[in-house]
């Protein structure tokens, strides 16, 4: 047996009321006289007790709607609703409801929709939503984006119409939306290419001394390179500078950025005051920053203020590269894979662990001779340092 629930007349002069809230979820059980819904009129706001015991079988009016007095709001049934066509209490209790867009209020967008709109530069107001309560869903947004990207319809042909119209072009490609990190990287790379006059110079260094020193120690090559770079900068501070509109800014501090590859892109955490740190400390910071970069636990200021960047691209065997400068810095050093190669030393062929070093520099600031003098210093430090004293 069904019982109708109608909008009550709450005062002689009242013609309509707003259904503020269902206090029982659709499908849920209600006792006689248990508050069933909240109603608001111009004069009063109150709970409406249920006229009978039963289950809230059918809901005709949603929360937020204003309807005339006497409007059928819902129906109570003495039997619970069928599990699949009604809503089962278990999930009914969760109460997923899209917040209705009110005339004054902002419409509600999910995090995914907001994120994608940012990435694609979409004004959400222009999209018609198909979700609950007219919500713009992720699919609505992606559909909008692909429609926007579709080529404009061809102008009508004046010549002879083809006998059969061609099938609409359908792409089979899987479209993976860009992550924000990917988009940031893309922007920065293009900007850097446009900003600096990139030139790359290549040197080769013998890592034999470093290898001997490393044996029995858990040190990677990177701390050695950082150490050599910071010391070479003391002679050639131009490498640690930045082009600014008012002039060239020679940096007081050496903050070395380390490029860390992640699955979804690349981060460049910074070792601050790298010139003042020993190998052990550098090794510790490199490991710590890389680990936290990968697990996304870097703090924002740990990727700021770099004055020079080192990218260790040799991990998979790359020999040399032409790295792109991390703006607004003046140069970036690429470190290739260390490989044993036959080299000529004192007219004899020797097998030595060799490494190519690629320096991309901004020719606006640095000329070739300066860059090569810097690299010669780096090489000298790499090959001839007393590392024991630099621990």
């Amino acid at each position, binding site marked *: 047996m069904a019982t109708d629930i109608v909008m009550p007349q709450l005062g002689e002069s009242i013609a309509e009321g707003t259904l503020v809230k269902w206090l029982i979820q659709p499908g849920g059980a209600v006792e006689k006289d248990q508050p069933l819904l909240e109603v608001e009129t111009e004069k009063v706001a109150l709970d409406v007790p249920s006229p009978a015991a039963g289950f809230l079988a059918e809901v005709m009016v949603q929360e937020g709607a204003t309807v005339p007095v006497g409007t059928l709001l819902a129906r109570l049934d003495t039997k619970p609703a069928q*599990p*699949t066509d*009604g*809503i*089962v209490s*278990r*999930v*009914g209790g*969760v109460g*997923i409801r*899209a917040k209705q867009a009110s005339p004054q209020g902002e419409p509600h967008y*999910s*995090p*995914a*929709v*907001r*994120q994608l709109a940012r990435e694609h530069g979409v004004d959400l107001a222009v999209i018609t939503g198909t*979700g*609950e309560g007219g*919500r713009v*869903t*992720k699919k609505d947004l992606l559909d909008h984006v692909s429609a926007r990207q579709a080529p404009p319809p061809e102008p009508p042909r004046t010549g002879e119409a083809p006998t059969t119209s061609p099938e609409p072009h359908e792409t089979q490609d899987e479209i993976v939306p860009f992550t*924000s990190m990917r988009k940031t990287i893309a922007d920065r790379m293009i900007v850097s290419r446009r900003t600096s006059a990139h030139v790359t110079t290549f040197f080769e260094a013998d890592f034999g001394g470093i290898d001997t020193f490393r044996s029995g120690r858990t040190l990677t090559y990177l701390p050695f390179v950082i150490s050599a770079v910071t010391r070479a900068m003391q002679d050639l501070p131009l490498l640690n500078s930045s082009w600014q509109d008012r002039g060239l800014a020679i940096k007081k501090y050496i903050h070395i950025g380390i490029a860390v590859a992640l699955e979804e892109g690349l981060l460049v955490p910074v070792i601050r005051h790298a010139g003042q740190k020993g190998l052990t400390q550098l090794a510790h910071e490199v490991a710590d920053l890389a680990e936290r970069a990968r697990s996304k636990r870097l703090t924002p200021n740990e990727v700021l203020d770099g004055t020079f960047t080192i990218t260790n691209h040799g991990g998979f065997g790359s020999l040399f590269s032409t790295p792109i400068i991390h703006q607004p810095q003046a140069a970036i050093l690429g470190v290739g894979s260390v490989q044993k190669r036959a080299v000529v030393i004192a007219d004899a062929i020797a097998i030595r662990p060799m490494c190519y070093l690629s320096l991309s520099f901004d020719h606006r600031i640095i000329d070739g001779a300066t860059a090569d003098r810097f690299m010669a210093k780096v090489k000298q430090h790499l090959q001839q340092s007393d590392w024991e004293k630099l621990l």
Partner: protein
Amino acid sequence: MTTATAVQETETTYVDAISQALDEEMSRDERVFLMGEDIGAYGGAFKVTQGFLKKYGEWRVLDTPISESGFVGAAIGAAMMGLRPVVEMQFADFISCAFDQITEVAAKNHYRWGAAVPLVIRAPFGGGVHGGPFHSECPEGWFFHSPGLKIVAPSTPYDAKGLLKAAIRDPNPVLYFEHKFLYRRIKAVLPQEEYIVPIGKAEVKRPGKDISLITYGAMVHLALEAAEVLHQEGIDLEVVDLRTLIPLDKDTIYASVRKTSKAIVLHEDNKTGGIGAEISALLTEDCFDCLDGPILRIAPPDTPVPFSTPLEEFFLPKVSDIIAGARKLAAY
């Protein structure tokens, strides 16, 4: 007969897969031994160890007094001395008697003073068998909050066997929750060759693009059934079987939700403070920007597991609950 007839591929039940894993590991490694109530001559309340006493003798198939805390404690001691005990809780419900030994001793020993405790506790859990409040519980949530334990809960014979073998070989205390509703209802052809299922790896049991349904244990089968129905309606459910609860395979969960942007977590343990709550929180923390709807939990109400048939049916999540939830979320 020694003719070269192809061996007929026989199907193995979930419960037999567990027995096979125990048998294989006991044959492979003499450090492995079993402890529990009525596991010897009787072969265990669910007959998992039937025939083991005869094969392995009373010191490797050890009947214990009714003394869960005592024999779990003893298993911890034996494990620290280098044996590989596998303890059977007659019902997972009784694990509460051993709570202190599991959470304070087994879970903390390595962290505190470096003692490895390679221990497995098998716990037959879950409802649907008219067991009532003391024979139907899903107590995994209690231990989910206790660092130092690993927790697995297989849903298929393949996983049941492979995960138990992995658990026995793990150097840490592993709680192995086996669903007794599945014991004799689920069968599969298992590989002839030896295999393990690594701890810590979830598996997508059915790929889909619209909603990720994250679950484990017996609920996996309900999820797959619901996915079939929803498929007809054009709602494409991806069913992620966690298999391991600790350590949780966040990569697989996140990859799925990043793809679908919508998630339902389904479990048979009570809703409040359960594994679903944790996964929901993780998704909000780590995948917020990819969510296109609220994260839904489908789980029993916060009551003990009731006995009477209509009560237990009401209590347990049903296929229809999943369908209703998925529809709502799809329409959101």
